[in-house]
């Protein structure tokens, strides 16, 4: 059998190299993409987890709270509890490095505590020769750097504006920023036990330097012997002020994993589509190949080849293509993951794992799993043609005339199944998300696609009579043929439908999204200039003095401020953003419900929540919102809901004066500036830079912020653009192979036409027209399905995955030119693919029939 297998079946793969290569490539792409997404995520999570473990050390529980930290008064309370053997307080500062775009995580630690809880953070002084080396780790100006931090910060940084930023470490001093002021710390040694980019300094000094006196970011607890984390949590939880939570250190990694899950599932779905199209490609090439070898198989059967052997041989062909594709895909997937680490880091461009430098790991089970998927795609694609070929009675197939009917599976439209699938899709849309994953939405998309394919014959019957009949012989022939056998259109059109549907759906969704983001950016950025000292959790900030300095710059008409803090609304939820700023003024609020007016009759201050917050917390306008601010649970009334594309986990906006009154926190992250009429924005920006030192603040024009945001947007969707191109190529290839297959089986028919006076080019035109017509039907069906899928993507999948709403914006012109282009391309492809069928002389072709 194996020799037979090799000569008869596998050799046939070599004969059609291009087709085999393309199917193989499609499978490889699907496997690679899926594997890469998984590898990148696993590595990033692993790296993140390692970082967490290093910082958490041997802690059994961690006390966590707002990212900006919490009042340290809980520290002695916990430290003295009998359940707690050791409590290690930490202040985590994301230190801004003046002039540079990267930052450095500085951990303020209590040296006497980390030894028993986080030994990996123990510093090693490099100046032991001096007497002060003994106390180096307590000296307020000393900082200890991990090897990676030391290397990276000792080098200049190429900024996104193309300029080179100086090294953060110069002459043994590390320059950092607090507020709008920079200062130097002595690099006094290293952290031999630490990996990643990390610095450690004395906790008291960190509190003083970064103006965080009285504030801790975390307390890591080592529990007394015999006390379980659960028991300790039960006992300690009642002591905690609102907004603080105790959790096991591993929970941090799973929280991050949960955050990025929706994004990953989306990418994995794209990979699945690639794999399915790969399978489809195998299907159409096998179909062609089986049609061509029909008589060969019949002869073999007549010579004694078992039906089962034939089936097995053909399936083996598919399996080999799938396996080869899988192997290539696994290699490609690892390459992709590696390249992604190099270019965008472990966050897949989505910002979930900022700052981690993951390592690629080989996972045998994962590789085997994806190889199996590749083989499965190949075998599944071969299944139908193989079954069909093995079922044909050899005697019938040997008769030449049979070829016209039997070469292709006689796919029938199944209107009942198609319609019930449509109904199923509608029902799936009503399903709530499962753990943040829009399972129903994905199911609806699958149902819709299948329904579109199954209903194609019905569509053909409905549409074909509408097309004119009078245009000439070739047109009438093509028209008549399709009208008579709409089922054949299914085979040729299925690939087109799937690819057009997916491509148009993505195009509509991305276009809607982009238009909405663009609108949103215009709305939220109405001021002339924006000043920022550092990102929300960074060490740079603006205070009252800095604001006064801004206001005194000539040309500044008004200044509005934003304070951004990240809280924990509950133990389970990830961080929740609170923005404190004026509700009206230099900042826009893209409301979709409620109003910006302060509710008159409310006894509690108002809050405006983002869509994500409304979805996650299940609250609406008029409801109460409780936020742990300033160590107490505060109540707000929801006055409006706004659209927010920036914070997927939810945000609430409260008035600056309410925030300051509740917390006393007067820090500012961003200032929005309106310039006086007639003043040059550029000059005001220059004056602001001069006032603070260009390295201490980032000054941006709304146009720049918009351009950068849209660039990030486009980069995020780059992978989907790529996938679109691939699916369309695969769809076209499907047209080509089916046309070729049809042409092969219709050689006799074409010969007859030649005898009746058709020229070769007339036949070519006929094939092209048939191709165009079939594709046209597929395109129409695909566009209909695509529109519906786009709606599902926008209203179900995006809403449930990311809690983002958007306005529908259909790119009509692009879709139309895409559709027309595709039909023309299909005509061309069909003509080229059918060329082989026309090459034989008319006499021979007709003769063969008898």
């Amino acid at each position, binding site marked *: 059998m194996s020799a037979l297998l090799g000569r008869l079946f596998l050799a046939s793969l070599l004969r059609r190299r291009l087709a085999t290569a393309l199917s193989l490539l499609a499978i490889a792409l699907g496997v690679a993409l899926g594997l890469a997404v998984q590898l990148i995520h696993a590595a990033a999570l692993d790296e993140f987890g390692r970082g967490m473990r290093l910082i958490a050390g041997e802690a059994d529980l961690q006390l966590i709270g707002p990212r900006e930290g919490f009042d*340290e008064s809980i*520290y*002695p309370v916990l*430290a*003295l509890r009998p359940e707690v053997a050791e409590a290690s*307080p930490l202040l985590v500062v994301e230190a801004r490095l003046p002039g540079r775009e990267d930052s450095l995580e500085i951990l*303020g630690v*209590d*040296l*006497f*505590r*980390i*030894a028993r809880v986080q*030994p990996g953070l*123990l*510093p*090693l*002084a*490099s*100046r*032991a*020769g*001096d*007497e*002060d*080396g*003994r*106390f*180096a*780790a*307590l*000296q*307020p*100006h*000393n900082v200890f750097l991990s090897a990676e931090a030391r290397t990276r910060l000792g080098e200049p940084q190429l900024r996104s504006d193309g300029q080179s930023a100086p090294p953060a470490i110069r002459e043994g*001093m590390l320059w950092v920023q607090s507020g709008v002021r920079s*200062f*130097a*710390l*002595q690099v006094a*040694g290293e952290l031999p036990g630490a990996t990643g980019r990390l610095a450690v300094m*004395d*906790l*008291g*000094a960190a*509190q*003083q*330097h970064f103006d965080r*006196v*009285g504030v801790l970011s975390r307390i890591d607890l080592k529990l007394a012997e015999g006390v379980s984390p659960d028991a300790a949590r039960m006992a300690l939880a009642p002591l905690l002020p609102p907004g603080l939570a105790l959790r096991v250190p591993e929970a941090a990694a799973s929280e991050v994993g949960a955050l990025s899950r929706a994004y990953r599932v989306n990418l994995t779905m794209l990979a699945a589509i690639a794999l399915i199209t790969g399978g489809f490609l195998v299907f159409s090439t096998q179909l062609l190949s089986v049609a061509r070898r029909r008589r060969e198989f019949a002869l073999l059967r007549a010579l004694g080849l078992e039906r089962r052997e034939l089936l097995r041989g053909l399936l083996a062909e598919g399996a080999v293509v799938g396996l080869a594709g899988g192997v290539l895909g696994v290699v490609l997937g690892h390459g992709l993951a590696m390249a992604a680490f190099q270019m965008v880091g472990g966050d897949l461009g989505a910002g979930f794992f900022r700052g981690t430098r993951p390592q690629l790991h080989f996972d045998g089970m994962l590789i085997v799993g994806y190889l199996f998927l590749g083989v499965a795609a190949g075998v599944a694609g071969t299944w139908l043609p193989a079954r069909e070929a093995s079922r044909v009675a050899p005697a019938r197939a040997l008769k030449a005339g049979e070829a016209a009917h039997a070469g292709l599976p006689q796919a029938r439209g199944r209107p009942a199944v198609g319609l019930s699938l449509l109904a199923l899709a509608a029902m799936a849309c009503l399903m709530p998300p499962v753990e943040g994953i829009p399972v129903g939405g994905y199911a609806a998309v699958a149902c819709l696609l299948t329904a579109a394919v199954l209903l194609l014959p019905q569509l053909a019957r409905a549409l074909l009579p509408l097309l004119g009949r009078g245009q000439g012989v070739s047109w009438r022939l093509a028209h008549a043929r399709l009208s008579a056998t709409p089922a054949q259109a299914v085979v040729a059109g299925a690939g087109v439908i799937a690819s057009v549907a997916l491509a148009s759906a993505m195009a509509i969704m991305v276009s809607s999204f982009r238009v909405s983001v663009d609108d949103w950016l215009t709305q939220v950025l109405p001021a002339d200039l924006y000043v920022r000292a550092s990102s929300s959790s960074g060490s740079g900030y603006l205070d009252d003095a800095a604001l006064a300095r801004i206001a005194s710059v000539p040309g500044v008409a008004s200044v509005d401020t934003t304070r951004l803090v990240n809280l924990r609304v509950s133990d389970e939820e990830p961080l929740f953003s609170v923005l404190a700023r004026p509700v009206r003024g230099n900042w826009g609020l893209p409301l979709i419900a409620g109003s910006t007016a302060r509710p008159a009759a409310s006894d509690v201050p108002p809050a405006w929540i983002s869509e994500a917050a409304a979805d996650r917390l299940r609250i609406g306008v008029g409801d109460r919102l409780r936020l742990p601010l300033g160590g107490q649970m505060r109540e707000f009334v929801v006055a409006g809901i706004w659209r927010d594309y920036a914070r997927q986990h939810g945000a609430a906006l409260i008035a600056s004066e309410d925030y300051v009154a509740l917390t006393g926190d007067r820090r500012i992250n961003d200032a929005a500036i309106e310039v006086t009429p007639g003043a040059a924005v550029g000059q005001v920006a220059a004056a602001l830079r001069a006032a603070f030192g260009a390295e201490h603040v980032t000054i941006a024009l709304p146009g720049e912020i918009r351009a950068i945001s849209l660039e990030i947007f486009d980069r995020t969707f780059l992978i989907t653009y790529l996938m679109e191109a691939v699916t369309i190529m695969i769809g076209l290839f499907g047209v080509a192979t089916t046309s070729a297959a049809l042409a092969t089986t219709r050689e006799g028919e074409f010969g007859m036409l030649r005898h009746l006076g058709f020229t070769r080019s007339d036949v070519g035109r006929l094939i092209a027209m048939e191709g165009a017509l079939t594709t046209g039907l597929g395109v129409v069906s695909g566009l209909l399905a695509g529109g519906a899928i786009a709606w599902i993507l926008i209203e179900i999948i995006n809403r449930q995955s990311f809690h983002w709403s958007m306005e529908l914006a259909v790119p009509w012109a692009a879709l139309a030119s895409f559709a027309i282009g595709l039909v023309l391309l299909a005509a061309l492809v069909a003509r080229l693919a059918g060329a082989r069928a026309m090459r034989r002389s008319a006499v021979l072709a007709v003769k063969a029939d008898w």
Partner: protein
Amino acid sequence: MRTARLGWGGMAYLCRMVQRARQLSWAAASVGALMMVFTGPAVGQIAAPAAPYPAVVPDQPLQFPQDFGAHPDYRTEWWYITGWLRDEVGVERGFQLTFFRVRTRIGEDNPSRFAPRQLVLAHAAVADPATGRLRHAERAARAYPGLAEAVEGRTAVRVGDWFLAGGEAALAGYRSRIEAEDFGFELAFDPGRAPVLNGSAGFSQKAPDPLNASYYYSRPQLKVSGTLKLDGRTLAVTGHAWLDHEWSSEILPEGARGWDWIGINLHDGGSLMLFQMRDGEGRAMWAAGTLADARGEARRLRPDEVRFEPLRYWQSPRTGARYPVEWRLHLADGRILHLAPLMDDQELDSRASTGAVYWEGAVRLREASSDGQERETGQGYLEMTGYADRLRM
């Protein structure tokens, strides 16, 4: 460039230095030498020099209970309790408990409560002849209100759940509790009499140069009662103890190699404290003492009135150090005292953690009476330092 492990190690070093300081018992800690504030380029916004350590000067009368409390301006300070415990079946054991306070002169302008202005360290040990060696444990922390602190005005020192408290009034007692892995104790101490001032009314000179001095008083003949935990067994104990409280700023004299110190509760109700400081050749550089009667009337012993004579050596199998575990003590009035240990191996070997190696143990004092028979006349503690190899830095 040599590197030194900080953190546990660095802190260990600190403990070691403080230990060494205490081993002098009265000498101003060498810790101070390590406290010199780094004088590199002015960095950060913290550049204000901290106030200097106050000097220890004579003729500054001690005031109680105020001076039972901490003196945070001085460089180092300790409350040092040693004593003998007897359980209900009559087994005798020694114990030791020390709290140190160290002013670092770091972060004194820092409003943060975490600024390491003061460090508090503690050390505890039990000498059980059945074990044959010391059990010991230590704690260290930066001072933080409520967690680790040495307060002023009364004796109240704590590191986490280890504490020593009392001294609210001149005759008030003390309480302490420590809990370590294989031992622990909870004890109450009753003084019954006023403190004994050492040196010149509490001004205790450590070397020929009066700059090397400390403020130093002792509370001998403390009546002890409470519980002792050994390997999970809890024993009711009674006994007697000795508390030293001492604070100072100046560093040790040049050339000091080690020191020997005793604090003995005499059976007649009196007390005897003696010390000598040795140079590199083992010669006494300085010696002094205080002899008090049962009413607390103290007589100061000057350098020429005290002489230490080693009688018998014991070599540590762990460190190889040879300690003179038996001594003959010569006092100026012609009295000759004989010092013998509760057990030979009372070496405190904490090389695995803090790295300090010295001998600190329970001893019996014997004296030949007029009939020529030698009888036990007191029990107390002997401390010997500078016998082990030079400490690794």
